[in-house]
């Protein structure tokens, strides 16, 4: 079930990169960087031969392929007719979600599920969301109680509810 980003062909013509298709250009750069890093790291692994491949052979092959795709993307993005810009970045939601999940991961084992959940919910309930504070508070309390009961008490996941003393 593929999901696609939205294409936003726009008429504006500010070209800092010189590329017409900016999403393609930037994704090409990302592939290129990962591909180069992949080759550099995999150099340390024994390559072996085609008939008897070592652990390094396949990763180097893939990284090299990724470099080629990256270069091709960058070239096509410059040649392509018709401008395409990157859609506006959902930065606040993305960072708050990532931060919340990260904090949950850091704390869930040491501080227990309840405190970790509270911290997670505190991180993701940022101002851009039009929930009234009291609603969000009630929702959070319900969610924390629900997950403690269902996942730990009922399903018996090996998680502490509270910090170990």
């Amino acid at each position, binding site marked *: *079930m593929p999901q696609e980003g939205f294409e936003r062909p726009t008429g504006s013509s500010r070209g800092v990169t010189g590329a017409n298709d900016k999403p393609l250009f930037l994704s090409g750069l990302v592939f290129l960087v990962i591909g180069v890093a992949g080759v550099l790291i995999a150099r340390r692994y024994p390559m072996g031969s085609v008939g008897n491949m070592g652990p390094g052979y396949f990763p180097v092959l893939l990284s090299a392929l990724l470099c080629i795709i990256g270069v091709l993307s960058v070239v096509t993005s410059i040649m*392509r007719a018709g401008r395409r810009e990157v859609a506006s970045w959902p930065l606040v939601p993305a960072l708050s979600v990532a931060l919340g999940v990260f904090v949950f*991961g*850091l704390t869930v084992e040491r501080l227990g599920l309840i405190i970790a959940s509270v911290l997670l919910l505190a991180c*993701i309930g940022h101002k851009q969301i039009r929930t009234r504070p009291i609603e969000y508070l009630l929702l959070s309390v319900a969610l924390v109680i629900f997950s403690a009961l269902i996942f730990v008490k009922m399903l018996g996941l090996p998680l502490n509810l509270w910090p170990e003393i």
Partner: protein
Amino acid sequence: MDILQQLAHGFGIALTMQNLGYCLLGSAIGTMVGVLPGISPVTTIAMLLPLTFQVPAVSALIMLSGIYYGAHHAGSTTAIMLNMPGEPSSVVVCMDGHPMAKQGRAGIALCVSAIGSFFAGCVGIIVITLFSPLLSEAGLLFGAPEYTALVAVALMTASVMSNGSALSTFGMAVLGLLLGTVGTDVGTGLERYTFGLPELAEGVDFVVVAVGLFAFAEVTQHINAPERRGALSVKFSELFPRLSDLKQAFPAIFRGTGIGAALGILPGTGPLVSAFVAYAVERQVAKDKSRFGKGAIEGVAAPESADNAAAMTHFIPMLGLGIPAGPAMAMMLGALMIQGIQPGPQLMANHADLFWGVVASMWIGNLMLLIFNLPMVGVWIKLLTTPYRFLYPGIILFCCIGVYSVRNSAFDVLMAAGFGLFGMVARQFNCSPAPLVLGLVLGPIFEENFRRSLTISKGDPMIFLEHPISAGLLALFAVFVVIAVLTGARTQKHKLAEESA
């Protein structure tokens, strides 16, 4: 006869109180997920993974598959009522379904899509029943070169059939393969790309990646979406189409079902692609093309049928060969592997109960869905108005717990946060995340068989062409490359034409 006996045995398993309950639960959750935009089946399966550890494998798979096909069944409701896909693949139904609703024909659109889904679902199950055993028998003949070629074709189709540039999606597939090499090399025991972290020695779990790329990135996209305004309401008496409507809809349902059933089997394609193809075909065969986009009933019936037929036949590569055809299938395979069930062509022989029990439950589930989607449609329409701001905190919390529970690893949660950010970036760059997940799941299978093939042939790449099945698959691979290049060139021309106009 043998198949009927096996199916009867399967019904014996599916009709136990417990499994009937899981089937009902799965279909109900699936319908809910399908109706609510912003929660996909992948996300739901991730949230429910901890639940599946506690139940037998058959019940778990019955529930998870119910969620999957239930979501595809119900996604059209949101598309028709709100002009918004409740499930990504129902985006095509919006084009004619919502205009129908605006003309006061919402009930008819809902009814036709429910009938189409039911019919397509039934045909899909028949195809699964007949085709999976054949495939799994053929799969037993598969050697290393055949598997290598099959995986290559699966990844290529996934790249060509995704929306967006074929180059970017192919890059995502290769990136997925590369991620699959992280961890201990099976042949030599050397750790690759682990950066000395013991948590990475066993590799990157695809549940982590799928949750990051789908669930977290999805929430990020929807979090600031405008609130949905009150949905239209539909009375039960408005649901019945006239005979002339049915006369127009039925041929479209048949065509859509055929397209969906055929395309769904190919790994990498799936419901969304099938729905697009079915819609395009309807436009081609229609006498009056101008009706499309303005409430043509075929424009609802055909893509909805294709969507559901493909959602069913999508199970075939997973059940028959152990090759998941898409991210949701990979999640289900993951749930089975946690239960200690080894996927592959031998699954049907070793776990016949599992296969036939699940297939039988699909019949029951499909019938339940017909009831959910026709007499009870009003209930789900009310659910549509639940604001997303009340849903997303729970989605994120339960996904975190789900990710943690797979390996009891807090490190996995940290990685999921990282993949969430990466998924957001990928979406901004029009890179479809599905091929990456597929590449990650198929990567180890691909590498193992690739290496083994070339060891067998002492390094001669001709081995892939000497084996007839693998040669055939590689020919298919070449066809897809050509399609990718040609469609790339065509969109290019199209753009130029648009600009000069």
